[in-house]
């Protein structure tokens, strides 16, 4: 049985941490019972978020959490950093918007991989992205 409040975090500081975060996310989603396709979706979303931290904030963390409600179980992932923050969130949520010259798929792509997507950012303070996926 999974512990209800199980949570673990991976610091993102160097390039290899991106791989470590997605591997851990994949293992964790497998333990929860996600199939191969959703494992790939979750791991890829984590990879994109970790790369955003590495590219834009240099330092941050990815945390995983097991979640459940009355009917489902799922995974929650929080990517947080203390980077420059995002001044115009509606723009970064537009498909095709980039400041890196197309290095990442962008936030809309990550949103499409998951069931729930939330972003909070304050200029000069940092950014926190929360994503969730429910097991069907």
């Amino acid at each position, binding site marked *: 049985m999974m512990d209800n409040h199980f949570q673990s975090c991976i610091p993102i500081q160097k*390039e*290899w941490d*991106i*791989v470590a975060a*997605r*591997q851990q996310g*994949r293992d964790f989603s497998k333990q929860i019972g996600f199939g*191969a*396709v959703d*494992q*790939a*979706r979750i*791991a*890829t979303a984590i*990879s*994109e978020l970790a*790369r955003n931290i590495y590219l834009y904030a240099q330092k941050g963390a990815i945390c995983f959490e097991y979640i459940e409600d009355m009917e489902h179980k799922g995974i929650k992932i929080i990517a947080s950093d203390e980077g420059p923050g995002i001044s115009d969130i509606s723009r970064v949520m537009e*498909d095709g918007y980039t400041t890196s010259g*197309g*290095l*990442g*798929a*962008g936030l*809309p*792509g*990550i949103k*499409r*991989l998951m069931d729930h997507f939330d972003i909070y950012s304050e200029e000069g303070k940092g950014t926190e992205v929360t994503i969730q996926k429910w097991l069907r």
Partner: protein
Amino acid sequence: MRIPILKLHNYLLISIQTELDDKTAIQFQEDLLNKIHETWATGVVIDLTSVEIIDSYIAKILGDVVSMSDLMGAKVVLTGIQPAVAMTLIDLGIHLKDVPTALDLEQGLIKLRQELEE
């Protein structure tokens, strides 16, 4: 880590069997272009059967290596992309439209032969 590149007649064959981190992918890009230059290979098959995750960065590197090889005069075919990887890439909004693909290594070699004989 280096990804091995095998030469077979005029072709280069690569089977990626490892988790692709950014550095390995960039190194591979460089190694492949050098190998094309050294061997005068006309065709390349990159088999991705064992690759479980392709994110936007790795996809960009793979797409670029196809265009770069093309500039040098070698055709590249990507083979064996897993169903889960294909679904994830489309969700991400990555279509790799101009990249030749085939179901497996065998089909990839057939496709190369057809393209190079035209």
